[in-house]
């Protein structure tokens, strides 16, 4: 009896699965909308058009906080609509949860590209972006990232554009600040770093720092921690013994504040407390470290809140959407990334054609965004100035507005 029942179930399940697969395999082949006929930049069509911009970003799990970048992008879209720069084209943001996982990111990309018909997809996190890259090529959609700091991301594919700071510049900027602006001699000193384990862009930054250290004669001491750790007493005890002149964190989110607190609690008082890339606008830092945060020096894109009316509107819009939090450098980068995408619309691309958008984007030379001026290279990469800031009185203040990598 059992045997027959199981055969029945078996047949049922196989039939279901086989049907599903047949539908899938024989279903529509070409996911991309047909490209526009080869005419020069068409005059805007009489009916309103929609540029769908997909966004694969972690919205759940440990990295759920990154979902806030969608607000940054939406604020840019609202600004573009209000200013009328897009004519009768509207941009629509379609976020998808990538769960910080490669496979999910790829699934999200496929859904956005094939089901939702988005010709442009924004993404974040190197691992996910690199997994999505071949898929973007295959599906012939544009893949952009304003957050992937790995310079290899955009290389080798016409469909991929990167407009984020290069992670290694943080190292350059901080070393230059210390040696040139603060005029310190680092020879023989120890530069201690707290680094999150398992983060590839931080590993690249460490490599660069070690390179510079070898050239300049100081030593780099690295202490790893696990994302989500709250207790840093032991790594700090270790670093204390080395009597470092400089302690840098490569941390984001809550760990930043917790590390600096733990340092103060153990009496570790280096001459300089630095942070590469994760400090500016980090609300958790102020929340957790309070007054102790004052004096921390960090590198960041040259984004200045309140520098001009548009930036102020961005800050207001983002704060409203995020329950009072002010935008950080990542939010600003993604705002600018949205402006970059909009350039294709402004130069008359056909918003239903990924190929046309790609061609127009490849020709964009520069965009003046809230992070400063972005210059775009011919191979899909970008450059923006780096600045140095310091936490003063609970606020993030720029102290060197522009500092170049070596």
């Amino acid at each position, binding site marked *: 009896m059992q045997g027959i029942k199981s055969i029945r179930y078996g047949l049922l399940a196989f039939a279901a699965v086989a049907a599903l697969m047949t539908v899938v395999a024989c279903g529509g082949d070409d996911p991309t909308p047909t490209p526009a006929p080869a005419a020069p930049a068409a005059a805007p069509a009489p009916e309103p058009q929609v540029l769908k911009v997909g966004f694969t970003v972690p919205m759940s799990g440990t990295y759920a906080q990154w979902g806030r970048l969608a607000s940054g992008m939406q604020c840019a879209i609202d600004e573009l609509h209000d200013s009328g720069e897009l004519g009768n084209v509207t941009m629509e943001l379609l976020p998808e949860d990538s769960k910080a996982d490669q496979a999910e990111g790829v699934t999200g990309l496929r859904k956005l590209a094939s089901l939702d018909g988005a010709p442009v997809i924004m993404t974040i996190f190197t691992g996910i972006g690199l997994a999505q890259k071949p898929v973007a090529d295959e599906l012939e959609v544009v893949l952009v990232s304003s957050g992937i700091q790995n310079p290899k991301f955009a290389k080798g594919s016409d469909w991929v554009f990167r407009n984020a700071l290069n992670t290694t510049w943080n190292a350059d900027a901080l070393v230059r600040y210390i040696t040139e602006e603060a005029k310190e001699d680092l020879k023989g000193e120890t530069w201690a770093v707290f680094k999150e*384990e398992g983060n590839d862009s931080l590993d690249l930054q460490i490599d660069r720092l070690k390179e510079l250290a070898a050239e300049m004669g100081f030593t780099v001491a690295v202490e790893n921690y696990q994302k989500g750790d709250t207790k840093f007493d032991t*790594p700090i*005890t270790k670093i204390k013994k080395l009597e470092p002149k400089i302690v840098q964190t490569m941390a984001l989110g*809550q760990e930043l504040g*917790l590390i600096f607190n733990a340092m103060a*609690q153990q009496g570790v008082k280096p001459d300089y407390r630095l942070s590469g890339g994760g400090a500016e606008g980090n609300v958790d830092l*102020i929340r957790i470290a309070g*007054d*102790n*945060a004052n004096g921390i020096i960090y590198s960041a894109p040259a984004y200045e809140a309140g520098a001009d009316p548009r930036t102020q509107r961005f800050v207001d819009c983002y704060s409203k959407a995020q329950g009072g939090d002010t935008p950080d450098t990542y939010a600003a980068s993604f705002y600018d990334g949205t402006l970059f995408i909009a350039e294709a619309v402004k130069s008359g691309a056909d918003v239903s054609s990924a190929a046309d958008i790609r061609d127009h984007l490849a020709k964009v030379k520069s965009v003046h965004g809230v992070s400063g001026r972005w210059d775009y290279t011919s191979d899909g990469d970008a450059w923006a100035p780096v600045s140095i800031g310091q936490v003063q009185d609970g606020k993030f203040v720029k102290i060197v507005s522009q500092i170049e990598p070596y």
Partner: protein
Amino acid sequence: MDTFIQIAINALALGSLYALLSLGFAVIYNTVRIFHVLHGAAFLVAGYSTYWFTKGEIFGYSPGFNIWVSAAIGIVLAGVSGIVMELFIYRQFRKKGAGFLVSFLGSLAALFFVEGMLITVAKTTHRMARPGGPLPTVNIQNEALGLDLYFTWHTINTIWLVALLVVAVTLFFKYTQWGRMIRAVASNPDLAVAVGINASHVYLLVFILGSTLAGIGGVVQTYETGITPIVGIHLAITAAGGVIIGGIGSLPGAVVGGLALGLAQTLAAYFFGGNWAEPAGFVLLLLVVLFRPYGLHGTREHRELRRLL
């Protein structure tokens, strides 16, 4: 020399927190014999309540209570959550005659559910139940001994508070009526019922006690370094680990196990790097389980029980 002492203090602080969690877990396990992964939820309930009542807001209203008041509320709520867990979850499983696997998965599911709810409602933002800044520290310096120690008052307070609780719990079990009843049910449920002990009441009491202990841990942690929704599972596994290392069936063992875990993590962090702290704890657990399954302090009867499991 002072590094050694500093590390010892770090280990003791960490170990105390774990010991507290393990003690709560052990109190429950000894009597109910269920792998209560939901223990992490009591911690979360206390932690989040403390936060909401001090700095956060509930339905738009910001209570802004004093930290002691909020802590008390948090701990009480943790105890209440223990009642809820027993009445609505474990009692039901017992009625259905569920075995260890079913109740374990059910407990795990409930924990995930609570975490999912917290993620949806409170997001994964880190919450700390106090204003920002480092905690007040004590600095002991002694040129002669080459000492330059730093520790926070919070650490010291945690250590003696946990010690006090351990003593209190031990006394409770040894000398009070309720304590004796619990031990009776723990060692022989049928006999206990036969002599007229109300097992249902005992189970409730055990959950209240264990969950309250976890709640205290939650308050302490949320005050010092804050809380996020996803720590529930880690804590439950840590608590279970401490109990196993110290020996199932033994309350002092649970405390020792928790301390041992804290020590192992601290040493691993020191010698191998911060990212090896958690794995080191688990490796210790694995070694104990493989080579000394009754733990460091396990009672003889539990040793026998284990062979039959």
